């Protein structure tokens, strides 16, 4: 049986027909399975939601208890059946709680990767490659120009810059969910034990990570601090706030941004970033191609990014590959 007859893209999201549920639906549905808490995957308004306990906690903190519907938590490796379709979740290594969805129906297995990466992340368990018949992969950084360097080196560059410009504030743009907490952990592992100052929009999710046992050290809200005290300190803020009035309180700051997009120099320059840090929660080209090899799926559907290059690569490796166009999937947490 062709896999597209039981799993197919629809305007509301990826629909598992025999199970009658959607994965990461972009508009409210009766029954949703959610891979992780980023807002392009997790949304409020569904009647029933299945996800990891961590993802459900993130959704609760973002949308409130009432907006996420009836919840059902599934641990990694635990398996249930929904209308005869076997469903289990496997670690995706993307952010806290992130999961791949493993679907079994009538002897055929489809794995939906959600967002994932393959390198170590101190805030979540590593991606688990699972053999399958169809692998639906993300492709955010699916061009061979994307090769994320070792994150230790990137953190060392940040610390080095703080030593070279001790009189300036280092203001680092980070996505609120995942990147922020991972960068803090990496800094702590590199021996940076000074207080780290947070934009108000980052505080809640950092608290949530701590409740799940991630030690983030001494964090302080930056919002109430007097302008003079920023010299020489490290401030984290969501990317959207970097150009606004809030950040202008920090005179002569070194503007930094931690993202996989920072690999492209002209992009960094266009955004006015003085210290680009190439740190990403998505797989780079090498990780994507390595993953295709490891899951060994004869068929790959590519979504969520630059489909062309990965489809081409897979095809040259003898894999049946095509782009899956999903509506409403915008980038967050790149």
């Amino acid at each position, binding site marked *: 049986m062709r896999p597209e007859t039981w799993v197919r893209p629809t305007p509301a999201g990826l629909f598992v027909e025999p199970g009658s549920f959607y994965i990461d639906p972009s508009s409210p549905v009766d029954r949703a399975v959610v891979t992780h808490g980023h807002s392009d995957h997790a949304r409020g308004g569904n009647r029933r939601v299945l996800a990891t306990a961590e993802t459900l906690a993130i959704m609760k903190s973002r949308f409130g208890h009432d907006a996420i519907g009836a919840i059902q938590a599934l641990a990694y490796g635990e398996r249930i059946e929904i209308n005869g379709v076997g469903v289990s979740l496997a670690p995706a290594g993307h952010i806290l709680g992130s999961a791949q969805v493993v679907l079994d129906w009538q002897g055929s297995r489809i794995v939906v990767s959600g967002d994932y990466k393959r390198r170590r992340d101190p805030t979540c368990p590593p991606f688990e490659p699972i053999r399958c018949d169809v692998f639906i992969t993300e492709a955010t950084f699916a*061009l*061979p*120009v*994307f*090769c994320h*360097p070792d994150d230790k080196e990137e953190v060392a560059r940040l610390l080095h810059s703080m030593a070279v410009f001790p009189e300036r504030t280092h203001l680092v743009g980070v996505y609120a969910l995942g990147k922020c907490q991972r960068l803090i952990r990496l800094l702590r592992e590199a021996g940076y034990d000074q207080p780290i100052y947070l934009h108000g929009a980052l505080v809640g999710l950092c608290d949530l990570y701590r409740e799940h046992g991630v030690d983030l050290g001494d964090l302080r809200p930056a919002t109430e601090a007097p302008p003079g005290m920023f010299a020489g300190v490290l401030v984290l803020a969501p990317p959207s706030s970097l150009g606004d009035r809030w950040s202008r309180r920090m005179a002569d700051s070194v503007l930094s941004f931690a993202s996989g997009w920072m*690999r*492209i*120099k*002209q992009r*960094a*320059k*266009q955004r*006015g*970033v*003085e*210290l*680009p840090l190439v740190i990403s929660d998505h797989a780079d080209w090498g990780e994507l191609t390595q993953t295709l090899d490891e899951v060994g799926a004869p068929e790959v559907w590519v979504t969520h990014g*630059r489909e*062309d*290059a990965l489809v*081409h*690569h897979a095809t*040259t490796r003898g894999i049946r590959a095509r782009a899956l166009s999903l509506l409403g999937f915008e980038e967050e947490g790149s």
Partner: protein
Amino acid sequence: MKAFSRLLASLLYSPARNTKLRLLRVYLAETPDPDRGYALAALTGTLAFAEAKPAAVREVARQRLDPVLFDLSYDYVGDLAETVALIWPASDQSHDLRLGEVVETLTLAARAKVPELLEGWLDRLDADARWALIKLLTGGLRVGVSERLAKSALAEHGKVELAEVEEVWHGLDPPYRSLFDWLDRKATRPQIDTSRLFRPLMLAQALEESDLISLDPSDFRAEWKWDGIRVQIVSGPDGARLFSRGGEEVGPAFPDLVDRMSFSAVVDGELLVRRGEEVAPFNDLQQRLNRKKATEKHLADYPAFVRVYDLLFEGEEDLRHLGFDARRARLEAWVARTGLATGVIDLSPLVPFADWEELGRHRLGAGALNAEGLMLKRADSPYVPGRPKGLWFKWKRAADTIDAVLMYAQRGHGKRSSFYSDYTFGLWTSPGGELVPIGKAYFGFTNTELMELDKWVRNHTTDRFGPVRQVEPGLVLEIAFDSAQRSTRHKSGVALRFPRVARIRWDKPAGEADILETLVKRIPA
């Protein structure tokens, strides 16, 4: 290469002059010779490799990389050097390569050897260093370091006055060992033979017509702005040299000029080609520039000369501090006495005028003289290197325009990679005939117009070839251009200089766009 690439990247990201200065100063202090000298030369555009061309980069990219993945990547990144640097597969990077080694090897390398060298080096470098290497090889580092900034960094490094560095800078060649020896207090200041030295040019700012309201016509003198190549003649006892505006020597391609110049002076003028008594269109000069070594026939068919408009030195005497009128008097006397006798120098006349209206009428006649427009120079302006404000203005003649039909659109690069922003347009062979492409335009429209054009292209696509879309012949673009010339490379037989979109004629039916003959008639005979 690691230190150099780190410097380049930091310079690229730091807009503030003071930060750049600090980065340069630290680099000069930490980096040994000859690397720091070559780095400085590369940053200021003084380093050029005759045999290393961007084609070499494309060639190694084509041989080593999957063409589909390469094209997709290039389309996304928008910069050849960066694409190749990022996409190049990582390998052994345990030994860094010295910048000096790269520069010296490239200077001596034959063209056919360059791709092989490049490939070997790319394999040994990390992504940043690969980027720096390719930028170095293809020129155009564009990290915002002016010659002046580099000289300021040198002055700070050696704790000497900027003027002292400026005195010697143009007389020295990379890697500037004698300069660094002096700045590091290991030697005295280098001695320069100033008799054959290029002096940085004084440049004009573009005139906004609104400027005319605030400027007093009696304060200014006007000259034609000739459509040739600005040159500086530096002639002394050892012979003459001819420099382009960037200080590059062009003399070897013009033996018919330099051989006849046996005077001692530094003169500013325009390199032109004559047709009978008149100035030939730019295309004739292009014929000369295309050849490094000219044949006798070439020299005779395209006789070159210099039309001079300023005198910087007469003998040893520096005239640059004098006002324009005073220099002009010296120039006119010098041309009458010495210049004309060479047979290859004449005087660019002043254009007399009483008020701006009269000058404006002269400007309309510029095209007939094969001039680009007018130059306005303050009567009391000293000769100041660089582009000082308020002293010299260029007032270009209005561009010509033609109504063409949009034929193909291609996605742009970088910021514009998601828009169809490169437009190929054409003219009708005859009313009701076929369209034949005459050129491509990338700019001239606002961002809002770009969105509209992009939308129009997407809605009227008839065919696709890779990143190119063919569109219905339904949209008229008013194309402005500086001049039209014959071309054997284009199917239409015509090429445009500086075409850009002047207006989008949403209102005009495509059938009413111009025919090719209309354009051909405007080619100067």
